């Protein structure tokens, strides 16, 4: 069970918290102006990081405040806790490079934006 430091209450067991997934996803100011694909990206697409992940937590069985955390998804070590509205701290990405380079697959669509940064898409 993780030990999570609520910026308002201090270190507490994970069982007091709810995880809110990826942090720093800003709701589009004008959703109507977006294409379906852009809206779907906001709505559904989330990073699946091997390394430092910025994520939201809520101290749901405590002060009920939301905050952000940076966690290494490999070691589960928390690298930072910070309040909502604060800038994400500058944390160098950890590199876990055991993975072989991706195969070049001619069947993949040409748009590189669709296939960077998303392990699952391959």
């Amino acid at each position, binding site marked *: *069970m993780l030990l999570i430091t609520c910026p308002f209450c201090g270190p507490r067991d994970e069982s007091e918290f709810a995880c809110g997934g990826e942090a720093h996803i800003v709701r589009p100011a004008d959703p109507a102006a977006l294409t379906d694909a852009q809206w779907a990206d906001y709505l559904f697409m989330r990073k699946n990081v091997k390394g430092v992940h910025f994520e939201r937590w809520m101290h749901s069985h405590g002060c009920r405040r939301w905050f952000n955390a940076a966690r290494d998804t490999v*070691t589960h070590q928390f690298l930072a806790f910070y309040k909502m509205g604060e800038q994400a701290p500058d944390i160098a990405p950890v590199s876990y490079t055991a993975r072989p380079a991706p195969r070049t697959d001619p069947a993949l669509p040409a748009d590189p934006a669709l296939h960077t940064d998303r392990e699952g898409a391959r």
Partner: protein
Amino acid sequence: MTGNFRLPSGGRIDRNRPLGFTFNGRLYRGFAGDSLASALLANGVTLVGRSFKYHRPRGIFASGAEEPNALVQLETGAHTVPNAKATQVELYEGLVARSQNCWPTVEHDFGQVADLCAKILPAGFYYKTFMWPSSFWMKYEYFIRRAAGLGRAPESPDPDRYDKMHVHCDVLVAGGGPAGLAAALAASRSGARVILADEQGEFGGSLLGRRDVIDDLPGAEWAARMAAEIAENPEVRVLRRATVFGYYDHNFLGIVERKTDHLGPNGGQGMVRERLWKVRAKQVVLATGSIERPLVFADNDRPGVMLADAARSYANRFGTRPGSRAVVFTNNDGAYGAAIDLADAGIPIAAIVDLRADVQGPLPTKARERGIEVLAGHAIAATLGSKRVQAVEVMLLNPEGDKVHGTPRRIECDLVAVSGGWSPTVHLFSQSGGKLRYCDQRLCFVPERSKQVERSAGACNGSFGLADCLDEGYAAGAAAAVAVGFEAPPRAFSADQPGETAPRALWVVPGKAPVGHSKAKHFVDLANDVTAADVRLAAREGYRSVEHTKRYTTLGMGPDQGKTSNVAGLAILAESLGKPIPEVGTTTFRPPYTPVTYGALAGSDVGDLSDVDRTTPIHDWHVMAAAEFEPVGQWLRARHYPKAGEDMEAAVQRECKAVRQSLGIMDASTLGKIELRGPDAVKLLNMVYTNAWDNLAVGRSRYGLMLGEDGMVFDDGVTTRLGENHYYMTTTTGGAAQVFGWIEEWLQCEWLDWRVWATSVTEQWATIALAGPRARDLMHELCKDIDLSPAAFPHMAMRSGRVAGLPARVFRVSFSGELGFEVSVPSSSGLALWIACMMAGAKYGIAPYGTEALHVLRAEKGFIIVGQEADGTATPIDLGMDWIVGKKKPDFLGKRSLARSDMVRRDRKQLVGLLTKDPNIVLPEGAQIVDRILPKPPMKMVGHVTSSYWSGALGRSIALALVSGGHKRHGQTVQLPLEDRVVEAVIGSPVFYDPEGKRLHA
């Protein structure tokens, strides 16, 4: 074979406290301090069970948690424990145990035929045999399930009590052997807050079974003194019979403490049986020791074959002769110490058979000096005997170790003390995420790199010598204390350890015939009957991964989780694949280290305490009125109020009739209530609801639908404007917490600068709904200070006043389609208001109605219920509620999703009414709807029934359904294939009753 195998003196048993116990129906005697295993051995009981697959006779093999064979059914009835390891069961007066996996008795077991059929029961037998024909799997499964498993689970509720503790400490020391005691001493002397836990009833670990000397004291006495010193420290918590079973993230560890098991099922009356400790430790010292491995040789499973150190422990610790004449079989020096101890206890050592050709270490020399014959470069090629080993055949081993040769020498013995080296108990270390390294010299996996704040010390770190254990333990304890800010104390004790020479790696000892080519079996895993031939077969069949091989052969999957077998198993796999052992690696170590009862995990959170039951301030009245309750979220709500002789149907129809014709009363206190205050409250409402809120006047109410960002309806309710910047929101009973969380999330994560505050007031108000044509008449009597006339107090309005003398908020709302008032008073006054309404309403025949009647009444009106019609896949448009979607609003949560291509598909499932052609048929909810009946499934399903009731008001059945493209299909006939018949129904409007809403606005 029974008799007295107790040594005349010695051991850590209390010979003044004899204890009677029963095994397989026979009465035996042992002593306090015995384990069930040692007491059985002392009585000459060596056949204790039958093996899992082949039903071969099995005896006691080990002396601790690693025991693969001696699994017993402990006690009977509700107290029974299956697969109890006899080696870990402390003896108590009246103990009752039975053998498992045998019928009719362990001596004469019918299942033994499996051994004769061994040739047709290879690895992966189930996968190979029961695959064809595939439709027969269900039939096979019945027999497989009967044959599988060993002990039997209790069939009645657990009569014992359990609890949990959450604690923090500076240093947690797992294991109370020499290393653990040294670590705990160092840490506690430094002043750190320490928890020391050991799985046994007595501290000392390996010291209890050996004859080591520390600081001129016998090892066990040293352990007792140190444990006493540690326990005296008020900063230290010492847990006996407490297994550290799991090492989780961020130094969170689980310990299960067995508080009464050693007293028997009735010995701990009133006491908690087991306590689960949840520990968050700043520092952890693992001193979990090591587990001796057997050698894999022909028929190495006969009763009487035993781990060498276990045999030594039975003699030294329990004053028991594990046999009358022993052969020791080893690949390392350690077993010589065991041989010497056994000889000193009066058990003749016929020979020490050593796989190594050159045996020169100090211990072998000592053994030779004692006159014990050492057969270096030899191997046991066969064991003889059936229910007990009677002799072994020893042959010369070739230098490669793949063949035995020469004339077999038969040596009579009833004990084969075997040692294949030691495996550090790295379970907790691995659970913590630490990485292992294979050590070629010591032939074992040792900790290499820690992931958490943890130190391994002593045998679990691959340091098997006593002095090393003490040194490492003390150093680890001191370092842990220093790391949390204490000063390391000086060192204080000394012990000798004999030097040892290297063991020989020989994972399969050859027999007379090649492995797998005769009746002889080379067992790797005794618990699951996995042989060397099985592992090699898996490799030949293409298994490369140790994890796959484990599952295919079931190696290490028994109740012992392969504690004695995993290393040999993966070494044999590596050999077969021609790979080095580190490349094959280990299987994953997962918690728990040894089995933990569900009782301990559940603690006291059982029965009424397993979940919260929320009740309203009026609950006691419902109980007195003999209401039937149903859970809604965590709430208990009255479902209906049956009168004498009424079933639910009759009660619900009566309640509905009262509402439609006169007056009904309902406890609506469970509705979620949220107060919103602040200048941006209306901004918030505009975002969370689909409709517009800018022009809602003070004192007026409005219905709203809430969507997720995906456009799906997730809650609904009525919100009232109480003041300039003050709103009162109601939610569904089950959705209250979710809605409140939703508002908090947006305000805290996205709209940080909005000035609006949300407060849950669900518990502050009791709410009573009055519904029916006479509702206003009753309100007139109870409320004098509010103008109740329709013109002054219209539908969807709110007024404050006094009702039955109580300060109240009165809302004109209705979920039944009748004239309705909802009166909210402070919770403490809820029951008083209810009683006042009941008394004043008697003349109108006022009827309390429950959730079931409510559902019928709202379904007659076509009102949706979130969770039934809105099932998480329905948009407001699907539900025919376009009228509530503010198309002119620039934005609200979920709005953009409503325009996604999938949301505007014409064939989406849409809410419709459904009337069966035979008005007497009430459709089952969930029934599937098809257009065309085929002779048999599959048929194309176009929808399903979401709500279905008998409507008394209409005198017929009604149903709501979600049907593909349903809005455009009114008037069409569809088919509903039920289990026993096909029902025809016609699609129509979902509003069945008073479609103009005249009654509502009355």
